[in-house]
């Protein structure tokens, strides 16, 4: 009974915080999406499902949705794949210091503010004539690529940047997961003469289940919500809206077009997508073992 009281007391502030800052805004957002809402006006008309009907007919929204799904699919897959490989390679080093050094190197871009690194990439790495990437390509005889001005290339540039800036976080998580696997499991595999690949496939991969679950969900959520590179790295959503994603579209509708009701409808779509995918993923990769 005492324990229950303690748990209740500890939970109340957290629940209160969640209710005030998460549940209420979501409900308000949902309500606003049914209005032609202007926060300055005292007369906001109820328009029912009009904003949602508009969504279906809006070519820019469809473009933003497609770009978002494509971006998230590619970046999340690449991010997790690269992070896992890098974490595994780091784990091969016996020295703790060396392992920490590599983890730090990969984690560094995560510490730098994304707005600042986006500016650096836009001004120094990607520019067509003076950018580092094209200078390097020219040196090996490859023609310059218009990284930020060609609608077919813009998304690739955004993905390259996102992988660079975000992979370190998952490297740390996977490294922690790998370090947490008991060494006797690997020792037993060594005695059986298992190769590195077999150890990875039969031991590391399945025993990283819990790490995977967390990494996939949090990477999905954060990549759906990414904003800085879309607002700073590319110019005005890129040519032909090639870099327009839902998070940027919500900002544009709400604060540039002052169409808060419609922006709320778009936010709701994004919310539903993230929630559905997270629930599916959690259900699919549920783990019911422990070591």
């Amino acid at each position, binding site marked *: 009974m005492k324990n229950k009281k303690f748990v209740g007391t500890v939970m109340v502030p957290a629940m209160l915080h969640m209710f005030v800052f998460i549940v209420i805004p979501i409900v308000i957002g949902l309500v606003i999406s049914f209005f032609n809402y*202007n*926060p*300055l*006006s*005292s007369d906001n008309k109820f328009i029912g499902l009009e904003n949602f009907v508009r969504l279906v007919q809006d070519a820019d929204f469809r473009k933003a949705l497609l770009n978002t799904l494509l971006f998230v699919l590619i970046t999340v897959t690449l991010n997790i794949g690269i992070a896992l490989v890098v974490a595994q390679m780091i784990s091969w080093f016996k020295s703790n210091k060396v392992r920490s050094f590599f983890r730090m190197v990969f984690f560094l871009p995560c510490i730098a503010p994304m707005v600042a690194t986006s500016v650096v990439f*836009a*001004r*120094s790495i*990607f*520019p*067509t*004539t*003076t*950018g580092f990437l094209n200078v390097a390509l020219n040196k090996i005889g490859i023609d*310059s690529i*218009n*990284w*930020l*001005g*060609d*609608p077919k290339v*813009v998304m690739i540039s955004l993905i390259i940047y996102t992988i660079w800036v975000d992979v370190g976080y998952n490297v740390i998580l996977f490294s922690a997961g790998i370090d947490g696997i008991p060494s006797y499991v690997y020792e037993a595999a060594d005695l059986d003469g298992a190769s590195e690949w077999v150890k990875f496939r039969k031991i590391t991969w399945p025993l990283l289940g819990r790490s995977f679950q967390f990494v996939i969900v949090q990477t999905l959520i954060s990549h759906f919500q990414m904003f800085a590179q879309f607002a700073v790295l*590319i*110019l*005005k959503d*890129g*040519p*032909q809206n090639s870099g327009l994603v839902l998070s940027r579209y919500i900002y544009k509708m709400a*604060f*540039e*077009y*002052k169409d808060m009701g419609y922006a709320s409808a778009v936010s709701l779509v994004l919310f539903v997508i993230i929630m559905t995918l997270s629930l599916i993923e959690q259900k699919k990769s549920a783990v019911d073992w422990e070591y």
Partner: protein
Amino acid sequence: MKKRIVSLILCGLMVFSAAGCSGGGENKAGKDDVTLTMWTHINEPWNAAYKDAIKEFESENEGVRIKLETFPYDEFESKVQTALIDGEGGADIYELWGGWALDFTPYGTLMELPEEMAEKVREENYEPTYGALEYEDKMYGIPLEYNIEYGGMLVNDTLLKAKGLTVPKTWEELRKTAIEGTEHDGNIFQCKGFDFVNWDSVPYYFLAFILQQDADYMTADGKFDVTTDAAKTAFNELATMVTEDKVTDLEGLTGGADMEGYQQLYAGRNMIVPRGPWTISEGEQSFGLKLGTDFDYAAMPQYGNNQKFASENGWSLAVSSSCKEQEIALKFLEYLYQDDVMLEHNIRCTQIPAKKSLAQSEEYKKEVPYADVLVGILDQGQFIGNFNTDRLKETINNTFVSYCSGEYGSLDEAMEDMNTKLNGILE
């Protein structure tokens, strides 16, 4: 003992908090002290000019204090918007850019100027400087400057001389000079002869070229019409400079450049770039160039029968309707609006004055000589219109990029599409 210590701490805190409530104090004249807050964006010379004006105003008005708070430009609009939506908190006096006021005037969030003051603003200032501050014949702020993105162009003298060219005086000369000054290395530009492709210039030049053919981009009933022959001619004139003359590319709108076009001019990579005079100080301060020697600010040759152009509001000042001391806030606006104070402010901020008399004054021309190419055409400007100008620019620029990239079947198709989208802004 413990109780004593606690009592002492509490007494100390009471005295401290009472001392903090200085807003309710009295000055020598026996009146209550008043503190107003003013919000502006960060711009060193501008902020210094405001501070000096405030200091002078405070010395003339005992017991009045104006606290200047500044914010980075990028977050200034959302900051102002949030504060005015909230009504409480925020500032008493706001610096507003361009069409921001359009979002606030219909909802009573800004204080209406007295009729006498409003009439003065209408009579004494150029029309494009206060259009967005007016709503249903009422005025909600004072304009500080004339925002002009048409009429002037930066010229890299070093590049021009090296190619044996001179500053063009007619539109035909400009097109010819631009072609002769352009240099390519394959698909890469070594020098753009006339880099007009940027977020502001394409829309402003498009509208100006329509007006200069004695036509209009809006109908009498307030709708857009860019399907006219004049609009098609204007649009085609700009597009052919990209697609046929190839004097510049679309990088300024699509992205991919390391600098803006005018910065590339200062870096010796562009020969002529049309931009507002606000770009001059960057050439001198950031690139260490000298106006008149390394680069010039020259008059843009007129395209049509006249130099008509459209312009949106520049910076202005307005008082929040939730300001508790509106009379004093208004007094500060009136103080700043005085000819001598405003002239000094415009000169220090290198602004084109909104007031006709100041823009044409000898003192201003003497202090800001490069503005000479613009002051002669200021009275040919017209207010761009009561709509979201960011959306207007976005629509024109997107159509321009798509048309130049060959995504439309014909010019007619492009103009029809643009017309539909522009009228969508008004809905």
